[in-house]
């Protein structure tokens, strides 16, 4: 910039003669045919959109459309032949109540999500105030979310092992560690849900923290001047302003609980009544070669999640937050 200005001729009010002449001729051609109307200009945004749209269609819509198509066939996943069977897969799905029994397991994860949101909210609030080692704690809380889910599964497998980490820690406190943590359905599901809390608290925490930090600082000052304590600040400033994020977290928690997969699949493979709907779907597709039925299950799960979300939005509408 500086270079151009230094070499440029001294600024004058008159444009250079040639440019002025050009402008004049242009003006003379009558009503301007703007560049805006040029066909290329109209296409330009679409050209820019071409790459993302192509990716979106190829990797999202085509597979989903394929899945919906498979759900109406009896395809086994490999055979070149498949027969169109209409809604038979869906009929089968809804006439076999045992296929939906696995949703009971989701309650463990749903309860765990509630705990998770409370923990995340607590830490987000505490760490939004000025504390020593604040960033360190933030890092520690968020860290588990960065670890690959499969790795977490293996780590916690050792953790829950007979005589593993958990048992040795408990034995330091004199608690007899002779419990098979993944041994019976109740204990196994609770343990697995606990792992899920450990893993996802960080995500909720960061969402909450972001929302809390976007609250203007003056509000706290004003509240303090008015003599509001920490709890009152939380109750009347923080809570209302993070409501949209909170409701988002709840939606994520519910859909997450219905579609738990990684942790139980790696750790127990769905044994001992820890199977979830997604694990069951995967098994239908890849163990029993019922790709059609499995696709139908996946479609049904999608619809259930959409339904739950819709109901929730009706009950708790997303009204605009206006603090100031």
């Amino acid at each position: 910039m500086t270079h151009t200005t230094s070499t440029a001729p001294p600024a004058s009010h008159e444009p250079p003669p040639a440019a002025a002449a050009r402008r004049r001729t242009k003006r003379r051609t009558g009503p301007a045919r703007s560049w805006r109307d040029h066909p290329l200009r109209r296409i330009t945004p679409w050209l820019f959109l071409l790459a993302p749209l192509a990716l979106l269609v190829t990797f999202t819509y085509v597979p989903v459309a394929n899945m919906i198509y498979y759900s109406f066939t009896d395809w086994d996943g490999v055979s070149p032949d498949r027969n169109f069977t209409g809604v038979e897969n869906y009929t089968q799905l809804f006439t076999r109540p045992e296929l939906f029994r696995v949703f009971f397991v989701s309650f463990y994860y749903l309860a765990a999500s509630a705990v998770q949101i409370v923990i995340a909210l607590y830490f987000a609030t505490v760490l939004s105030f000025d504390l020593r080692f604040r960033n360190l704690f933030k890092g520690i809380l968020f860290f588990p979310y960065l670890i690959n889910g499969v790795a977490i599964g293996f780590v916690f497998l050792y953790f829950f092992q007979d005589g593993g980490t958990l048992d040795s820690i408990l034995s330091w406190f004199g608690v007899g560690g002779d419990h098979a943590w993944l041994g019976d359905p109740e204990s196994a599901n609770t343990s697995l849900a606990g792992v899920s809390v450990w893993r996802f608290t960080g995500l909720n925490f960061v969402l909450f923290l972001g929302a809390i930090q976007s609250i203007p600082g003056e509000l706290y000052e004003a509240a303090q001047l008015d003599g509001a304590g920490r709890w009152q600040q939380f109750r009347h400033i923080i809570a209302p302003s993070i409501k949209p994020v909170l409701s988002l977290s709840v939606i994520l928690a519910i859909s997450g609980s219905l579609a738990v997969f990684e942790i139980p699949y790696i750790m127990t493979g769905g044994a001992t009544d820890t199977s979830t709907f997604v694990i069951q779907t995967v098994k239908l597709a890849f163990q029993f070669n019922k790709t059609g039925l499995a696709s139908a299950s996946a479609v049904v799960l999608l619809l259930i999640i959409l339904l739950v979300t819709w109901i929730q939005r009706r009950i708790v509408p997303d009204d605009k937050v206006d603090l100031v």
Partner: protein
Amino acid sequence: MRRKPLSAALLATALLTVAGCSGGGAPSTETATAPSDADKVSGSIKVLTNRTDLVQDGTMKKYAAAFNKIYPKVKVSFEGITDYEGEVKIRMNTENYGDVLLIPGVIAKGDYPKFFAPLGSTGSMKKKYRFTGKTDVGGKTYGIANFGTANGFVYNKALWKKAGITDWPTTPAQFLDDLKTVKDKTGATPYYTNFKDGWTLAGPWTNSVGSPSCDARAWDALAAADKPWAEGGDLDVVDTLLHDVVRGKLSEKDPTTTNWESSKTQLAKGQIGSMLLGSWAINQMRDAAKKAGEKPDDIGFMPFPVQKNGQFCATMVSDYQLAVNAHSEHKSAARAWLDWFTEKSGFAAKEGGISALKADKLPEVLKPYEDNDVKLVERSEAKTEDVNAIDDAAEIGLSKQDYRQKLIDIARGAQDGDLQGYFDDLNKRWADAAAAAGS
């Protein structure tokens, strides 16, 4: 105007879906014949294998080099796939699944002609090879076994001797007594289920169908069985034994966190008494013993504890079968490799497997069986397709771990129910599925 992107996307989606559904062209049905002149056959072939370890440590390259001495113009490359079943299953939807591959378990037998080139008529193949029944479709054979494996319990001889047991148990009850003696006298875990890894509950136990009855057709019989778990049937004997072992607390304390790799060392060290596996496992156990500083000779192998007419029987089943891709452009080169690999490479012997060639001797690991006159029964696979179809429809999974994991859960009281109730349920599911499949 606002509608446009959506409808465009939908249109594109629909077009792509249609395109995606119309698969490749029909495969040729040309037989993959062995070349008559080794010098003339040429081309480069790709071999898919599940043995990533052998690809990485260069063993496969050495095989290829030895192969090239006879067939100098064929270039062989390998692709080791860790999740073999899962990945190859998806690749089978295209034409690009190597030239020589192991037939994934998921492919229905009746579909073999759509994917693989026939290797010859079963009538003539049968004379030369074992296990041809597994890939026989319509009188043609589509695969040759990598190697075969005999079933039985791998056990720690030194440990059992320490407990005072030298003879093989001849009945399930005696087997349970022996396990109890091992537990009481040595404190070791007498049996290890490998519940968490699961496959140890699937293959070895299911492959034992045929051992108690000493019947090569026991597996085929399931296709027509009304109640596969009926009293005295092979599945009943096998699964009841597993149930009783667990119920008698003769297996590991916490089955849900077991670990296959470490179980090998534990068996070698005498912390574990026995595991039901195939003869292929003996060499692995011996390696583990060597690494742990124990004597490899302490690893023993015993047949399933049931005698028929005073004789032990052990089923012999095929491992993966090698086949030639029906879409391969170098079928005769592929066949040359397949023949060389099964006949001349010495792979089966090295792995402790039973060679696919009838003329070959039994591997050294099966010496205890030969010495004690254990009858090897080659499992007939004539009805495998029907059995698998019923099994899938019933969602039981005879060759999957889930139903035996539940059996163990019931045995150790982690889930409600009892053995008989569970068997009744399995029988009912099987019968319903068989009826539906038959109609």
